[in-house]
């Protein structure tokens, strides 16, 4: 199904340029979607803009962006004026640097997009850039203006396309040392327990698959809706919930015991 591109522009490597388009890799469209209703009338609630001074409704076409210059002083900016902002990175992803794929740590990855050629004419140029990164096991680093911020972005070949990641700003990732200060620098795992942990991990290791990220709550909501639909008039009671209990922490002495139990349980389960 064709999805409207989120962004259109150019991918550039030195003198090689091709038209590309981009769409977010995540989507809200499959989520159970609610509308806001007025409880009194059961009609949909809609939002609109009113003039803060006159109180009158403002038509969509009369809405315009305002850049604040003083307390009550604004400069209107039309969208096509903003297009002319003097940065090439609004329209062109010019790959400035390449770096080994695993040198950019996961913590820097922010939002993923799928990047693909936007015109058959650029297909080959796009493929050259993609395949060369793949062959070198490299990712490209560039700049791109997305939603009114200039972001560092990473381009990673994936199948026939490229995944573009926005990368977090330096000051957005907090210093880990603060959080891990309570852990001894040279504390390592008990060598006697290591083989048992390895055994447990091995027994519980599986291949990545999207089933690992199913959402039981969405299913439950859909069930609730189906129930209500069946008995439109009746109010269905929320299911009684079992009281939750937290497990006690394991102290040092019984970790070994617990590990042995775990491995035994996994062995039984595995047969």
């Amino acid at each position, binding site marked *: 199904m064709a999805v409207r591109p989120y962004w259109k522009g150019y991918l550039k490597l030195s003198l090689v340029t091709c038209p590309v388009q981009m769409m977010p890799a995540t989507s809200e469209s499959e989520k159970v979607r609610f509308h806001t209703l007025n409880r009194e009338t059961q009609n949909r609630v809609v939002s609109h803009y009113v003039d803060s001074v006159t109180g009158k409704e*403002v038509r969509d076409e009369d809405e315009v962006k305002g850049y604040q210059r003083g307390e009550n002083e604004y400069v209107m*900016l039309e969208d096509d004026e903003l297009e002319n902002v003097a940065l090439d990175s609004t329209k062109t992803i010019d790959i400035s640097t390449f770096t080994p794929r695993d040198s950019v740590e996961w913590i820097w990855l922010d939002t993923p997009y799928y990047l693909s050629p936007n015109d058959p004419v650029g297909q080959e140029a796009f493929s050259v850039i993609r395949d060369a990164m793949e062959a*070198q096991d490299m990712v490209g680093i560039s700049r791109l203006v997305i939603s009114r911020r200039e972001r560092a972005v990473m381009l990673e070949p994936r199948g026939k396309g490229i995944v573009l990641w926005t990368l977090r700003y330096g000051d957005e990732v907090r210093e880990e040392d603060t959080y891990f200060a309570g852990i001894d620098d040279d504390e390592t795992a008990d060598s006697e327990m290591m083989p048992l942990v390895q055994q447990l991990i*091995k027994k519980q*290791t599986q291949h990545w698959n999207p089933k690992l*990220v199913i959402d039981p709550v969405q299913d439950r909501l859909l069930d609730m809706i189906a129930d209500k639909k069946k008995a439109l008039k009746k109010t269905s009671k929320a299911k009684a919930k079992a009281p939750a209990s937290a497990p006690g922490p394991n102290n040092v002495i019984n970790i070994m015991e617990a590990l042995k139990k775990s491995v035994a349980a996994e062995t039984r389960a595995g047969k």
Partner: protein
Amino acid sequence: MVAPRANWKGFIKFGEVSCPVALYTAASSSERIAFNTLNRQTGNRVRREFVDSETGDPVERDDQVKGYEIENGQYIILEPEEVAAAVPDSDKTLKIDAFVPCNEIDGVYFDKPYYLAPDKMGTDAFVLLRDGMKKAKVAAIARTVLFRRMRTVLVRPRGKGLIATTLNFDYEVRSSEEAFEELPDLKIEGEMLELAEHIIGTKKGSFDASAFDDRYEAAVAELVKAKIEGRALPKKKAPPASKPSDLLQALRESAGIGGKKAEPKRTAANANKGASRQKTSKPAAGAKSKSAAAPTRHAG
């Protein structure tokens, strides 16, 4: 130094072993440049109002409820308590359901990262899990109620501690195969690929987040200044796309073959059409020597 505040406290549990842990936000989002929405006619700011779509009357916050549309115009109302009841009670435990090899994990599912550190005394079980995963090169998949939502979390070692990344649900992620399925199978080989690899080699570097600056806000300020002074900023023109017939030449010039970067003056006539797409060309010694031999360069 003040100890940072945990966003969540609970337990992590693998097999029968559990230990108390805390989660801390690892990354925050910085603000983007804020515009106000104005009424073009009056220049006044606008504000949002919620109204009944039929009667046009304003609807108070308390009267706004969630409705699921079953048929055109017919809704099932779910009260906030009911929606909340669909979320299981929190047992405050990140229970590890599975381990997954690190190299198989699809990053597209990543949502937000949190530092996961031991809470209170006794880091033995924590360190055991950390080092066990490190050695096996796996990450753990755990599930728990976080901030009143059921979340799946990916836990992996990082330095002395662990990082827990919340994951998007399967239905929130588009498959890359589907996104790219209409692209032709085009595999680049031969000279073109080698030239491109050579160019990559000349641009090798590393990503340094601290050296990166967002220039957008300053650029908008410049734009506003120009507007006030009655100057128009030059319109951006689209860069010329590299046509398949020009591609090889563009690559050669990019690779700096035969001298300095010249104006990208290319004509279809000199473009050694298609030669590079076949496996026929075999520039063994890399792009440099090949380049010297390339007869296609125009001085401009």
